[in-house]
């Protein structure tokens, strides 16, 4: 591969990594590599070096404090499934359907988020609970809502000197959820559409999150508000239809995606 000749840095600590990040703004950050190394099959002369984040223990912890779950950016999916599977079942369901066992043995939460695919599997549950991303640079730390961090397909506002270190969110209580990933086959398929819906019976509120039907994963907030105000199911579905902007691409068509979004929304509303 053309990237064989790139310098390879393997920082062992976060401070070392942040220092390298500042010194080498043209270096690519590498975690599990399961998305990045596929994208790098196309030669890209912008990148002069690789900084491997996979050795950094500080960004690989899963902690729970006052009902807030924090997942380090370097946490590998298989480890999450082994150690944290019960805290937040919607995320566990999404992660267990992600790619294949070999990919899950390498791929990380941080990579899935920074890769910023509209079809990213971890994002619908994370958007539904208003998760935050934690960004660090040598002299600054930022905590941002994930929906503000991701701005478009493959686009985030990660600074040239920053590293994503963790995501965190308050674990919801007393809810029902419905998660569905629709792809060509069960394993290794990028989603044509993904959906994660939450219902909070005490508040009579829903959260409706859709993947692969807009430039980023989206929440149908207008439809959520309409539901709380007592709108009928078909009205909610209609408003969802106005929030999504599906496109035709190699994986599916806009028409099919729209249809599936509406059907998944109905399936969810009929279950609650």
């Amino acid at each position, binding site marked *: *591969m053309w*990237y*064989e*000749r*790139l*310098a*390879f840095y*393997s920082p062992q600590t976060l401070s070392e990594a942040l220092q390298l990040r500042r010194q080498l703004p043209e270096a690519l950050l*590498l975690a*599990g*590599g*399961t998305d990045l*190394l*596929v994208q790098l*099959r196309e030669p890209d002369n912008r990148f002069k070096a*690789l900084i*491997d984040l*996979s*050795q950094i223990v500080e960004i690989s912890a899963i902690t729970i404090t006052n009902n807030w779950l924090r997942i380090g950016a370097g946490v590998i999916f*298989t480890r999450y499934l082994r150690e944290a599977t019960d805290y937040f079942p919607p995320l566990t369901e999404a992660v267990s359907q992600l*790619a*294949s*066992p*070999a*990919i899950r*043995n*390498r791929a990380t939460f941080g990579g899935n988020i920074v890769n910023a695919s509209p079809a990213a599997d971890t994002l619908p549950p994370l958007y539904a609970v208003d998760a935050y991303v934690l960004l660090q640079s040598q002299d600054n730390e930022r905590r941002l809502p994930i929906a503000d961090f991701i701005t478009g397909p493959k686009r985030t506002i990660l600074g040239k000197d920053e590293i994503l270190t963790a995501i965190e969110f308050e674990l919801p209580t007393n809810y029902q959820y419905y998660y569905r990933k629709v792809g060509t086959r*069960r*394993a*290794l398929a990028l989603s044509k559409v993904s959906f994660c819906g939450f219902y909070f019976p005490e508040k009579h509120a829903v959260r409706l999150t859709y993947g692969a039907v807009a430039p980023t994963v989206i929440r149908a907030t207008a439809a959520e508000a309409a539901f709380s105000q007592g709108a009928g199911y078909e009205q909610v579905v209609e408003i969802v239809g106005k929030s999504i902007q599906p496109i035709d691409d190699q994986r599916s068509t806009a028409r099919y995606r729209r249809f599936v979004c509406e059907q998944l929304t109905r399936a969810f509303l009929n279950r609650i």
Partner: protein
Amino acid sequence: MRLKVNGKWYYPQANPSTRLLDYLRHELQLTGTKEGCGEGECGACLVLLDGAVVNSCLVLLGQCAEREVTTIEGIDAQPIIEAFIVKGAIQCGFCTPGFIVAAYALLQQNPNPSPTDIKTALAGNLCRCTGYQKIVAAIQVAAERLKQ
């Protein structure tokens, strides 16, 4: 840097940005590990990294520093290979090392896999010749034999 491959320590000549797959095939001449798609879709390049299956086309050599890689040449796969032959689970054979590595990893963790467990463990492996039923049957036979 150094890494362990099939039980032996090596100090690679290749740059750490080299794919593990290329290092194994070119520098160590371990050509049992195949390149199919090069994108993590087909599983022909599966190896074990500290005992867990990974796509060696999506791991860089430098990421394996101080870690242990086991290839098809380094696992005790004879019972699985024999079961593949008996059950006709091999035709062209290109995908076979990847399937054997995946099956080996599965049977290490779960000596009594159900057909669903087997299919789940093989979800990242593609075979364009045999279909999958014979492969699933072969792994069931191998599981039986390994228990004896």
